[in-house]
């Protein structure tokens, strides 16, 4: 286990370093970063001055290492627009996005796991068809359109829910449904496939032959084994959701990380963008690392291969 954990940790660190190189190189995407920062009327001297102040005149590896060391100390530079410490701004906005992500995940699991189990217990029944429809529609629904449609009916026409802001829990209902529905198809299909697989296995037949109650067989014996890959998929999808919440937060004006990312992109606030990309990527890397370690801990077959 320890050997596997160390190896997996090493890969995670390497991936994080590669991501940091990619994030850093965003500075050089527009060509000359000093020119990009300078106003159009800037003289050559001004540009040279900017280049010197921001350190763009140093060798690129020195710039990267300097940036990386600062980032490792939690210093992502100052936001060009807000003139505040980027890390502070991010950690102020992070809780909102985490709450949204958790609510969305709770909605997705509450919808997809019972549906997946029902569909697997009664294959080709009406439940199965319904579950399949939910999945097929979910995969084809553009999230921004779904969000606006919910807003139109529940917010404007029926006046049941507030359409923007983060004042109460009711503000989180629609965004969570939209964001959660996005991950429902994958979780549902995996639950269904896993349950179908497990239900046809020998030990379930044995459990049934022993005369155990059907519910006990279903939940204690079958679901426990089928849920394992679902847990790791859900943790991976949680990472995707935080990255994808940019669209939802922008529509519902939820003051989280996604909205901050969109604002920073509009303002061409590069240090902010870099910090958000890096934080979200590292968060995703940690999530997958934890999921893999948990899986290896629960299922010894993974550690060996």
């Amino acid at each position, binding site marked *: 286990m320890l050997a596997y954990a160390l190896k997996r940790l090493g890969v995670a660190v390497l991936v994080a370093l590669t991501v940091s190189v990619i994030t850093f190189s965003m500075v050089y995407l527009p060509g000359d970063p000093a020119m990009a920062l300078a106003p159009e009327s800037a003289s050559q001297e001004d540009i040279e001055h900017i280049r010197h102040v921001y350190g763009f005149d140093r060798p690129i590896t020195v710039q990267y290492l300097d940036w990386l060391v600062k980032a490792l100390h939690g210093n992502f530079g100052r936001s060009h627009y807000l003139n505040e410490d980027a890390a502070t701004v991010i950690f102020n906005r992070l809780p909102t996005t985490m709450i949204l992500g958790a609510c969305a995940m709770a909605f997705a699991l509450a919808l997809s796991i019972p549906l997946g189990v029902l569909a697997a217990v009664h294959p080709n029944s009406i439940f199965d068809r319904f579950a399949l429809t939910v999945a097929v529609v979910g*995969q084809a629904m553009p999230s921004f359109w779904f969000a606006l*449609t919910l807003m139109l009916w529940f917010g404007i026409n029926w006046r049941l829910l507030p359409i923007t802001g983060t004042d109460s829990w009711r503000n989180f209902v629609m965004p969570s449904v939209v964001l959660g529905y996005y991950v429902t198809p994958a979780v549902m*299909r995996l639950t269904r496939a896993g349950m179908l697989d497990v239900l046809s296995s020998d030990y379930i037949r044995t459990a049934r032959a022993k005369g155990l109650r059907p519910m006990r067989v279903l939940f204690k014996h079958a679901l426990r084994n089928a849920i394992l890959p679902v847990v790791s998929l859900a943790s991976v999808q949680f990472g995707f959701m935080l990255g994808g919440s940019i669209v939802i937060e922008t529509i519902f004006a939820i003051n989280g990380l996604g909205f901050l990312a969109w604002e920073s*992109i509009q303002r061409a606030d590069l240090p902010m963008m870099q910090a958000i990309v890096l934080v979200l990527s590292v968060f995703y890397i940690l999530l997958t690392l934890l999921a893999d370690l948990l899986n290896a801990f629960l299922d010894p077959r993974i550690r060996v291969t």
Partner: protein
Amino acid sequence: MTEQNMAERTIARAGIPTAEEILEPTPGAILQRRIFGHTSLVIGIVILASIILMAIFAGVISPGDPYDQVLSRKLIPPIWHDGPKVSWTHPLGTDSLGRDYLTRLFYGARISLFIGFTAMLISGLIGTTLGVLAGYFGGRVDMLVNFILTTRLSLPVVLVALAVISLIGSSLSVVIWVLGLLIWDRFAVVMRSATQQMRGLEFVTAAKALGCSTPRILLSEIMPNIANHLIVVATLEMAHAILLEAALSFLGLGVQPPQPSWGLMVSEAKGLIFFDSWLIGIPGFALFTLVLSINLLGDGIRDVTAPENRN
């Protein structure tokens, strides 16, 4: 030669099938039967074909010009609404600049399909190359590809796409390249495992024993046998690319105005949600229908070519 024999020969020459042939349908006939017996696949093909035709003949069938602004005729509702301005000249009404909505919808189909298809080609090329190499060679190559794949997966797609496009400036080709370079992960995963399954089979060993070169084995032995997986992933990724393009355009960093992208049309109409919500409904529904039809097609192809993989 007996008379009965003669009769049988005549029948065979006339092309009339004998008893054995009737009992065993040709593989083509089996495939055909499977395709037409698969309702959702047929629905997917019909819808997708109509949208493709709509896009190709947009110039012929549209009632107007997608860029033609007539401010005196702005915000006419579609024909299923009541109102003094509703008319068959503008079946789906007009937008806030007085442009015919049906025309913009037709031309928008072109943009969605074009971006989806080209981005899928780029990502397919990258993902298939990486996946096939990793699956065939295994070992260090596999580890390297796996590493690149993990790195790519840890980058948030929408955020990175938005950031990159905002830094280098938006245009049709920038959107296509950014999407193509970002969404190859599923191609790599599926092609890798499909190639791994093929690698140890007899025909590959036979080709090796015959002295075929590695590129030849990869291209003419392995590729044809994993082509069905490739087509399935390609349809799903095309749908994915179309949805991403729409999301980028919705956020203002994809297709730029005045071009008629469906995502951009929803974005332009979102300020009018209180008054003219059909402006959001129509392009959104078109997008949903297009993506749904492509997904139905992909799922259908998977069921028809490899029924054992159905779940």
